[in-house]
């Protein structure tokens, strides 16, 4: 059976399931992801509406992504004119989280590069002296 990995995306973290698990196909892996989302959402539904689970194949290529807000049955009774804006907002908040995390990653890389540059410059200055 093919191996799938699940990646939990919260507002502040990316949590990968490093070992992965075997599922008959992508649809079965998505079903598992939905059950996991329900486990994680339970008793904190509103807080987790912007969370997502990404289903990846064995090479860690993303196959699909499930937004918790779309799976939350506690808001499924809402009329479409209320539910849809809520889903749109949750999706945009999730995209914003992605952007902030990417920015943090870039800043960390820049900081590392500058630190490395400082070391190199100090070594060069030392040689000159």
């Amino acid at each position: 059976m093919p191996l799938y990995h699940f990646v939990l995306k919260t507002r502040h973290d990316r949590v990968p399931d490093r070992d992965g698990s075997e599922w008959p196909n992508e649809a079965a892996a998505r079903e598992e992801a939905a059950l996991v989302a329900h486990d994680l959402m339970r008793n904190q539904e509103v807080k987790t509406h912007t969370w997502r689970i990404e289903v990846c194949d064995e090479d860690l290529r993303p196959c699909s992504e499930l937004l918790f807000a779309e799976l939350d049955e506690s808001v499924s009774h809402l009329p479409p004119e209320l539910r849809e804006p809520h889903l749109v907002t949750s999706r945009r908040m999730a995209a914003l989280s992605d952007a902030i995390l990417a920015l943090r990653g870039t800043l960390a890389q820049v900081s590392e590069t500058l630190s490395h540059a400082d070391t190199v410059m100090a070594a060069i200055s030392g040689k000159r002296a």
Partner: protein
Amino acid sequence: MRNACLSALSSDALSLLKPYLTETALHEGSVLWDATKPSSEVYFLTSGLISIVVPVSDGAFVEVGSICRQAVGGTIFAPSDSYTQGVVQIGGHCICIPAQHLFFVAKKNSEIENLVNYCRDWILRQAQQMAACNAIHTADERFCRWLFQAYQRLDTDIVAVTQEMIASLLGIRRTTVTLIAQKFQTEGIIQYRRGKIAILDQARLRAAACKCCNNLARKHWPSTRILDANAVKLRGQS
């Protein structure tokens, strides 16, 4: 290592039980009792962990309490018409006594009677707390609560437990436990490796657990209550 309840008894009370006590091994995964196989024994654990679980559907079950060396498991309620199962989750050893002998001695000795009552209270207390916990707490909090309690009761930083086992006991998916464990591993609170979870930062683990830990804390353990009752009795005598 000894059972803390037996250790807490006075030598007079312990001598009443001694003729009936036998030592036995607890093998991981074995079912000590269930609805079809009621136990006639009471188990004083000296090591390991027994989960008291309620079967739900398709072979699945949910934990409603656990027993380590601070309490006893088995037929502590009489007569036994239990629909729970007692499953050895972490193997170890225990000292057994036929339930009828324990209850017989309890009628004659107030200290043993207290032991039986405290152990019954403990099982009821855990079941009530688990009902509340399952209803209102998150999967993360429940995972940390289970692990923190195992750490406290087994008195070890390394708990021999698989993700599958924790998932079954908490009634959640194994993948959910994997993701939660990964998160706490990244934060440096635990380290998971081949069926063992090392607790690296017990203060942060406790902080991440639900407040159910407080209501099931050491002062409520049967062994602690026996010690407290004996201390009060001694103060009264002096």
